[in-house]
């Protein structure tokens, strides 16, 4: 179990580095996709609530450390997203890509709306239409495109992690 958690931790590290360097260089119209959200949500519905929360905590924590204004805000946000996606673990079917796409897309939309509400609306920026069309929707679309590339990788990664876990436990039994 610990081995798996450590591996998951480094997956988050890798994704955070990719997100803040490579994906930022691939910005389209000042908007980049949200890889951290993709891994948090997908570990949520592939692995269940706890896996989702685990990923969420670390994704959020790193974001808080480097880019947060109020420490703990992103941690809570990502944890909740991971947790919420965990509810769909029961009906998850791994060969169908439409369902994960829908879930991640909805998560991204929720993320955008929450960001707008807490960080902009509460500071008196009322032009929701602008932010919706220029930030939330492009990020949403870009993220959906990215899922097509990353979903298979994440799924295979998760299977590998599970296998590693089961081998580890067999060793312990022996």
């Amino acid at each position, binding site marked *: *179990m610990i081995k798996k958690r450590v591996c998951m931790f480094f997956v988050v*590290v890798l994704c*955070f*580095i990719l*997100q*803040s*360097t*490579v994906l*930022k*260089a691939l910005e389209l*119209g*000042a*908007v*980049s996709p*949200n890889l*951290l959200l993709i891994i948090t949500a997908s570990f949520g519905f592939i692995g*269940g*609530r*706890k896996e989702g*929360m685990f990923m969420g*905590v670390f994704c959020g*924590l*790193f*974001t*808080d*450390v*480097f*880019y947060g*204004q*109020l*420490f*703990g*805000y992103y*941690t*809570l946000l990502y*944890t*909740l997203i991971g*947790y919420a996606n*965990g509810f769909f673990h029961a009906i998850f079917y791994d060969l169908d890509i439409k369902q994960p796409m829908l879930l991640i897309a909805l998560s991204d939309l929720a993320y955008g709306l929450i*960001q707008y509400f807490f*960080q*902009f609306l509460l*500071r008196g*920026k009322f*032009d929701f239409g*602008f*932010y919706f069309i*220029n*930030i939330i929707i*492009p*990020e949403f679309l870009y993220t959906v495109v990215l899922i097509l590339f990353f979903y298979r990788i994440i799924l295979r990664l998760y299977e590998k992690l599970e296998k590693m876990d089961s081998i580890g*436990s067999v060793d*312990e039994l022996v």
Partner: protein
Amino acid sequence: MRRKKRDSIPSKYILTGIAAVCVSLMLASYIFDFQGGPINTLSGYLFVPVQKGINYVGWYLSDRADNLQDLREVMAQRDALQEQVDQLTIENSQLMQEKYELEELRTLYQLDRSYSDYSKVAANVISKDSGNWFHSFTIDKGSKDGIEVDMNVISGSGLVGIVTKVGADWAQVRAIIDDTSNVSAMILSTADNCMVSGNLQLMSEGCISISQLKDSDNQVEFGAKVVTSQVSEKYHSGLLIGYVQELQMDANNLTKSGKITPAVDFEHLRSVLVIIDKKRQVDPNEETEEAKDEEASEEGSEESGNSEAAEDTQIPEEHGDSENAGDVQPSEETGDET
């Protein structure tokens, strides 16, 4: 067995626990300015070296790709530039003349402090905010290099932002185009104070917003330079922010607001300079000392009257100076236009 043990804690309790911790952290960071403490240092060691490496590789690749494209562009630009050079030489000679005049004035009034006098540290931008809502970035210098929170960050042509968080060998910089950034500024030519604030909405046009500008004589024109003002608490005065692009009268008919174009190209920001000197705040202790000095001088009965008189005469002179500077500046601008 192990699995069963783990599952014995229902996930909703874990969630509640995490949520409680997060909320208390948020409160802590709001009230006590908590910035992550040990997590901060640890993650600095984890990310900064890799981010640095990736960026160097990225820059190398993009440089290669740009080289070919650049060659074609450069050919076209050369002709245009030659024309500009001719124009600029004429302008330059005019400006030089004015520069001598300015230098004279400065030495006269001991105002020869410009931003070449600040001690600076160069740093590279190694990563950008992971979301799309804010414009902050991290640089590869931190408290080891003497960087502290609230230090000003500039790039070759102007003000970039301010340091908001510091790790051992990294620092977070909030750009002036960030939606939460507010800078107290002034129009260089007229010395009218105003506020420059980042605006996500205007960023799509490449602008930031300017507001609360009192310009009753309509002197501020398109292209006027906007610099940080003397009254700013954290920013050194006279750092170039940008150029006025558009101004409208506010509904209150007293102040104006509009857009300015920032002087720095935030899209392609690679290296920045951090001004190591912080803007000096007036310490309450210092103030009392000054007050004591004044009291002491007043006690020195006969001379006090003279010194006060001298001060009185000095003040109008300074005013005159600022007006003179105001007169010089517009003429410089008209020189630019021709």
